[in-house]
């Protein structure tokens, strides 16, 4: 997947770049509106990570520009403005998703993959890892061909793990992914632990390997190299 990161803050851009490159994406950077337009007109990207506030203009101009080109590139808007107006405006103009700063890198990755699947693969997509298979269209998961009886949250959790393989995911990050803004009211993250415990049990019962490992003091990791 080829991604253009439009972000005037080079440090933040580098974070995103580092994380995504590790996922095997090809990333390019644009630090302002002019550079972004330049790159978009010369190259084809699958996804654009777009900051709204740029030194020489508003990120919405890029969304409009892509629209005028009838370009089908996925757009993930990243903004420090946690305002519903901007969110609605962005989505109306044709952005595919909206993420508020500060964001978790695994979350950004999951969102990018989700919009990519939705747009290019029409949602009908199977993610296969060894004996685990997820059908994102049916929203179901199989292990060794056995359909898992997962709750919605457990399904989201498994998908989140598979999109962020070999990455440490903190309980906070997982909670925010599963419960969004409501995660603040959880008080503690025992619920995350509960969901993970159930998921692991269901996978193992179906004959799968337990890939989810606890990273002491931090959270969890879907370890592909675990034996």
């Amino acid at each position, binding site marked *: 997947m080829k991604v253009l990161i439009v972000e005037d803050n080079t440090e*933040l851009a580098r974070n995103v770049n580092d994380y995504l490159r590790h996922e095997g994406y090809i990333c390019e950077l644009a630090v302002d509106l002019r550079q972004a337009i330049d790159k978009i007109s010369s190259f084809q990207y699958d996804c654009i990570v777009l900051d709204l506030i740029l030194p020489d203009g508003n990120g919405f101009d890029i969304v409009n520009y892509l629209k005028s080109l009838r370009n089908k590139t996925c757009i993930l808007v990243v903004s*420090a403005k946690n305002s519903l107006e901007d969110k609605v405006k962005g989505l109306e103009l044709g952005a595919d998703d909206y993420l508020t700063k500060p964001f978790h890198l695994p979350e950004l990755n999951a969102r990018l993959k989700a919009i990519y699947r939705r747009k290019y693969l029409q949602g009908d997509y199977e993610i296969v890892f060894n004996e685990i298979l997820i059908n994102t269209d049916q929203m179901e998961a199989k292990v060794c061909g056995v359909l898992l009886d997962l709750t919605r*949250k457990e399904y989201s959790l498994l998908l989140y793990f598979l999109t962020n393989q070999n990455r440490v995911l*903190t309980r906070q990050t997982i909670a925010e992914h599963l419960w969004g803004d*409501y995660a*603040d009211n*959880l*008080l503690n993250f025992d619920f995350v632990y509960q969901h993970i415990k159930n998921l692991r049990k269901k996978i193992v019962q179906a004959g799968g390997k337990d890939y989810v490992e606890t990273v002491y003091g931090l*959270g969890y990791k879907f370890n592909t190299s675990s034996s």
Partner: protein
Amino acid sequence: MKLIHKFTLWYLVITFFVLIIGGVLSYNTVKKEVDREQARYLKKNIDFTIQELNRGVIPDSLSQNRITIRRLKGAVPVEGFLVSDTLVYHNYLKRMEPQVKVSTVREIGGEYFLITTHGAIVDTDDIASAILASITGIFLIMLVVTGLVSIVISNKILRPFHKTLKAMQSFRLKQKSSLQLRPTGTTEFRKLNDFLEEMTDKARVDYRNLKEFTENASHEIQTPLAIILGKLELLMNSDISAQQAKLIHEAHDAVEKLSKTGQSLTLLSKLNNREFESPELIDFSRVVEECLLSFEELIEMKGIRLERRIDNGIKVNIHPQLVNILLNNLLGNAIRHNIEGGFIRVTLTPDLLEITNPGEPLQGDPEQMFQRFRKNHPNADSVGLGLSIVKQICMQSDIVIHYIHEKGLHTLRLRFDVR
């Protein structure tokens, strides 16, 4: 009551009293004049009678109905006339009438005579009724003229004032152009307009400055926080010891909290700056149901029982974005500060929303609960701005909020329809 109506009414009341006083004054003046004229006429009659007496006419033949001549015994040296008032029976009116009486004493042919006469050209009653009639007429004319004049004044002289009022009513802090008021020739109105233009300009600039500040503060704080968060997440995935992992995790949590605090403070500033104008009539029942639905899982996970009594179709005038923040904060609190195996009772009636949950008694003054960074537990994970935000939203949406603590139950009661 309109300004012009007040003016008119006061003017008419004052005119009324002035006319009454004027009526009394003119009655007295006219009466005095008429009486003097009457006295002169009567004196002339007496002079004529004296002449006749001097010519030797018999007094009795001169004593007609108005003149009485009485022969006095002994000498009474009197010169001139004596004018006084008297009451005379009026034949037509069948009652006593005040009339003027003139009397004199004269020596004619060595004898003294008392000659008295009385009369009235115009009856006192007639004067009074004439004056009353004319004053009533004047008052009626005044009434009509004042009414017409007030309409004209209201349309002409007060026009700039009404224009200013209209402009002020449609003025919004958010508008881009400054308030434009039409020039006027009236000094007071010109001063008022100048003042208003100055004030609204200042208010607009203040509003914009604060709005820009909150936007910038949000952007300039959240971006570095995003960098820190990202770096910590990248660091997590590198080769680290358990000790380092713990440190990273603690830093990660602190950054999250800082970011949430920043967002809440920005929201509060926006609320204080009244950036959420234009409330809409919202189907409150539906929003409450939706909010409960999104909290359902959390409530279930915490083993809390939900009791709801929600009336249908209740409408509240509130900004659509604020209503969600309000309910999320209230329900979030009810979940967070609940007890093991507790419950949440949500009651919605046409004029109030009540959210009750059992919980630890509050430490400190309940009044201070709505203040910023006020927490029941100093080390609690929450930011401590939730209820300040709730309070602000209520204030802007004309909702009165009360906190009640009874028998281990916390209740937040919101009353709508206070207008």
